[in-house]
């Protein structure tokens, strides 16, 4: 068994008197899709925010195991975590709407391009190595546009794309940022069943081909069951179940959390 890419140990997050996450531990592996599910308000997005540095966790350890080093994410700011290879998307689409589709993907490769342009100075004087770096970046962008089927709209403003295309563009952009761990917050929210299935296939393909780990928050159970290797279930900030998708689906604690007690349902 491969070592875990991400180790979450006893993560807790408290806001004033409210405990949003309570002593959560789980592991996510590279080349695997780990889904975090649970009823609304269970704390799933809060977990993401702690992982990616948007919140500072109240306690716990978050370890990212890269090939060369182990990083403790709970102390790192969001920008550095992203640079370390943990790239996330958001519940609400956060593209750069006035910029073209292609530009969105080029911006995602900002850090290498900055280095290649010698922090802009080389770029200003037209350094050749920068120009080839930019061409490479465009090729990578083209590759991802082809994977998500948006090559034809490369020069259109990202804000003019229909909803489903915007969701796919988000994934493409995240991949251009060279992640080793992709954190997707409800990637198929608002998509019709066909688009959801397509996106799910894309995610599975990314996991297998690009060998990135994927951490997924989702409500769409079909997607979760289809593509996840491992599922973690949260309710009121606590882990109530964990395991393979089928095991979790039949777990009585999970059923109770989503549907309530069988008795209650009958009484109502």
């Amino acid at each position: 068994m491969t070592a875990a890419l991400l180790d979450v140990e006893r993560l807790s997050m408290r806001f004033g008197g409210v405990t949003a996450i309570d002593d959560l531990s789980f592991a996510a592996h590279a080349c695997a899709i780990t889904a975090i599910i649970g009823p609304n308000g269970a704390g799933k997005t809060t977990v993401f925010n702690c992982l990616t540095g948007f919140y500072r966790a109240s306690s716990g350890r978050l370890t990212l195991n890269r090939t060369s080093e182990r990083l403790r994410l709970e102390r790192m700011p969001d920008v550095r975590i992203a640079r370390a290879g943990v790239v996330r998307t958001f519940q609400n689409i956060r593209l750069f709407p006035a910029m073209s589709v292609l530009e969105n993907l080029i911006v995602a490769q900002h850090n290498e391009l900055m280095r290649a342009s010698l922090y802009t100075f080389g770029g200003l004087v037209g350094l050749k190595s920068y120009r080839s770096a930019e061409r490479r970046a465009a090729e990578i962008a083209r590759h991802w546009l082809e994977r998500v089927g948006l090559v034809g709209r490369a020069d259109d403003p990202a804000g003019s794309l229909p909803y489903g295309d915007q969701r796919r563009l988000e994934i493409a952009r995240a991949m251009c940022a060279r992640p080793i761990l992709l954190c997707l917050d409800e990637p198929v929210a608002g998509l019709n069943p066909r688009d959801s299935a397509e996106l799910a296939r894309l995610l599975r393909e990314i996991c297998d081909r690009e060998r990135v780990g994927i951490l997924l928050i989702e409500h769409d159970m079909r997607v979760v069951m289809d593509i996840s290797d491992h599922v973690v279930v949260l309710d009121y900030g606590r882990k109530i179940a964990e395991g393979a998708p089928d095991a979790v689906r039949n777990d009585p604690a999970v059923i109770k959390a989503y549907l309530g007690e069988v008795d209650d349902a009958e009484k109502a």
Partner: protein
Amino acid sequence: MAAIHAPARTPWGARFKDAALAAVVAGALAIPLIGLHAVDDAKGLRIGTRFDWVAIGIAFVFVGRLLMGGIRQFHLVNPFQPLAHGAARLRPVARLLPWVGIGFAIALPLLPFANRYVIDVATTVLIYVMLGWGLNIVVGLAGLLDLGYVAFYAVGAYSYALLAVNFDLSFWECLPLAGVFAGFMGVLLGFPVLRLRGDYLAIVTLGFGEIVRIILINWQTLTGGPNGITGIPRPTFFGAPLTATPDEGVTAFHQLFGLEYAAVQRVMFLYFLILVLALVTNLFTLRIRRLPIGRAWEALREDEIACRALGISPRNTKLTAFGIGAMFGGFAGAFFATRQGFISPESFTFIESATIVAIVVLGGMGSQMGVVLAAAVLVLLPEFGREFAQYRMLVFGAAMVLLVIWRPQGLLAHREPTIRLPRSDAPI
């Protein structure tokens, strides 16, 4: 996301009522301040009446509203729609426009109608164009609403003035220094505002602008206080001064070229100088938009949180924007100082900052040509009403409001992508 409101033509009865209401409001507005006015003279405070003006105003509003009733429609258009076909066909023309503009600008002093006044006004327009292009980096590209840009303009002007007057340095030596000082100030003032957004950022930067002005007025030993600094030397043409009678052993400009001395030579020289400076600013901006930092600025404007999630540091991006924008403001300030020969804190008020922001926003955020257009409009409009000098600012304010209501996204808001995919058959 696109919604178009096209109300049916409203019936005359409703329009009449609407116009009547507008007239009543106009009357209420006009009576206390136009109809009556406080006259303060030796006899004490009296009241003068101007009810004829009130009547005219009311009639004007009534008729105007009546006519407008059928015409006005509010279009809400998705700003991100790619240009419709018709507009897209204009694109080759739009690409030609900047070259036409540059050609015109270069030829201007040589045109028959170009007298000293025209060149002077054109020089002023170009100063504002350069300031607009400089602020465009901060407001248009990076989306940071800076209402205190005049501070950097002032730093550039005073740096040049003090260095030139006290250390006898030439304009060309001082220019880069002015830019450095201003740029440094930009970064310095950027630090405290890193976490601020939108309107708050605007007010704080406004505060900075005012603080700089107050310091300039009160730190008399350094800046000369309200009297400012006089005797600022003019720039030379590579060492040749543009005066009628040069000093011993120095060749004047006109002597160098075997011409008769004419006062207009210096005016033209200054004009070409600012033209060059402005074009350099423009070239720099066009270049840097294609570089990672330029794209990072635009991404920051679009969505700061998404930037964080992609590993782009908002702090560094913002500070760079402030610094570079301020630097160009400093260059413009140095030019301003050398053109006037004298500067005082009066030239660096909030109205200047507001004007430059208006130029950027009215031009269409991030649009280079738009800035030129807006600068021309905002500088020339009051010029046309020269006889009514006191109405200048009034017209200016009204123009700002009307223009932004007419075109909220700016006059030329279309944005061209900075990079396109090479065609797959193109050589790499």
